[in-house]
C-alpha cells in the first residue's frame, strides 16, 4: 500500500485535496491517501464520507487496515444476548482491536483519547479532504 511506504510520493499537508470520485469508494470501503506521515483513510459509511489518520494512538498500528463494522450492545432478546448496531460506523484497529467512531474519532476503550479526523466535502462526484 502506497500510504504505508514512507518513500512513496506524498501529497502536501495542510490543504484541501481531491482524493477520489464518489463511486470510487463503495459503502464499507476505504481509500488510503498518502497525506502526512501515516496516510489518511477516506471512508464511505452508507453514503457519508469520513476521513481519519491511518494511525492508532494505542501502539501506533495501521488503523485503516482494520475492519469497519458496528458496535455490539446488550440485547437480552437475541441469542448470545448481544447484537451489532450501526454497521460500518466504527473502525477497529488490526493490531489490538481498539474501536473508534469514524464520525467523531472517539473510542470507548479509553474515552480521554481520540483519533485525528479531517473535514470532508463532496462537490459533484468528487470527494475533497482537508488534511
Amino acid at each position, binding site marked *: 500500500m502506497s500510504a504505508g511506504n514512507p518513500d512513496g510520493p506524498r501529497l502536501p499537508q495542510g490543504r484541501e485535496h481531491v482524493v477520489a470520485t464518489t463511486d470510487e469508494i463503495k459503502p464499507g470501503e476505504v481509500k488510503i491517501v498518502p497525506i502526512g506521515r501515516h496516510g489518511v483513510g477516506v471512508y464511505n459509511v452508507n453514503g457519508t464520507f469520513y476521513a481519519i489518520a491511518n494511525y492508532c494512538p494505542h501502539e501506533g498500528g495501521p488503523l485503516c*487496515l482494520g475492519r469497519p463494522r458496528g458496535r455490539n450492545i446488550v440485547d437480552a432478546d437475541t441469542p448470545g444476548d448481544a447484537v451489532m448496531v450501526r454497521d460500518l460506523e466504527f473502525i477497529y484497529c488490526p493490531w489490538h*482491536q481498539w474501536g473508534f467512531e469514524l464520525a467523531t474519532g472517539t473510542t470507548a476503550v479509553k474515552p480521554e483519547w481520540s483519533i485525528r479526523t479531517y473535514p470532508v466535502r463532496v462537490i459533484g462526484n468528487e470527494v475533497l479532504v482537508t488534511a
Partner: protein
Amino acid sequence: MTIQPTRVPIASSVRTPIRVVDSDVHPVPRAGELAPYIPEPYRSKYLAEPRGESIMYDAPDYLYAKAMRVDTFPEDGNFAGSDPNLMLRQAIVEGGSDICVLEPGFATHPVPEMSQAVCVGMNGWLANHWLDPVNNWHERWRGSICVAIEDPPGAVRQIEEWADHPFMAQVLIRAEPRPAWGAPQYDPIWEAATRHDIAVACHLSRGRDDTMPMPPVGFPSYNHDFMVTYSLLAANQIMSLIFDGVFDRFPALRIILVEHAFSWILPLMWRMDAIYKARKSSMDIKRKPSEYVKEHIKFTTQPLDYPDDKNELTRLFEMMEADKVLLFSSDYPHWTYDDPRWLVKHLPEHMREAIMFKNGIETYKLPPTVPALDGKTMVF
C-alpha cells in the same frame, strides 16, 4: 515442459548490527504441512482426533480475529503466521526486529508419546519450511527444539538430533506436566541442554483435561481469568527449580519464561530470600534465591504490565535489575503484539541495549550482525 526454479533472494553482503532480538514469534503450519513430519502411529491417531475450541472467551471479536492481528492472515486463506514472507515484512521490515525466535504452538497431550510425536513433527517442519536456505536466506529466523518434557528420553533424543542445527536457538518446553521441574526425572533434559549450551524456554500453552494449566484453587470461570493464572504456573516452576536444587546440579542451566509476565518476580524474590534467610540451616541450596533468578532465568517483555503512572515503571525496572533478566518480545502475530518502537520507550535508557538485543545475543548465542535488508525500520 520447463521447470521454473524457486527464486531465492540473495542476502546482502553488507551486514548490519543486531539491535532488536524478538524472543516470542509464532509460526504456524499451512494446511497439511505438518502431518508428513509426525511419525506413525501417532500421525494417524493425532490427525484422527476430533479437535475442539479450547478458548471459551478471549480477544475482542474473537470469532473473526482468532486472537490474532487481523492484518497477519495471508491471502491464500491459511492461518496467521503461516507465510514466512508476510512475517518477514510485518515483524522485521516494518516492525523492526532483527532476529525472530520462532516458537511453534504445541499442546501437552495426556499421552506423553503423542505429545512427543507432535514435537518431532514440529521440529522437522520448522527446519524444512522456515530455517531452510529458501525461507531463511536473510538469516533472521531462529528455531526452537520442541520437546515434550513428560517423556524425558524422547526429549533428550530431540535435543541430540537438533542442537547442532545452525539456526536452532533454544529448547522449548511446556509448564503443565506434573511433577514440577525440580523433580529428578527431568535431570537428563537439563543435562542434555547444558551439555549443548542451549537455553530452555517455556511458553504458555493449554493441553486438555489434566494437562490444562491448573491454578492452585481449581479452574477459573473465564478465559481472561485463566490467562492471568499463567504467572502462578511460572512462579511455582521457579520455586521448584531453585529449592529442589536444579541450578546447583546444573550450574550452566539457562531458563527463559516466555509471555508469563514478569513484574511478579520482584516480590517473589523478596519472599524466597526471606524464607532462605530464616530457614537456611535446613536448606541444601547454596545461594540466595534471587541470585539464582538473576543468573539463570530470563523473562520476556510481553505482556508488559504497568501502574497508572507509567513513569513508576522505571522504579520497578531498577529494583528488579531488569537489565539482567529481561528479553524483548512482541508475540507476533497475536493481537497482543507489542511494537518494539512502543516497548522500548518504557525502558530506562541505560537498560535499552541490554533488554532489546544484548541479552538476546548472549542467551541465544547469536552473531553480532545479520545481512542488511532494504528499507528495514530502525527501532532505536
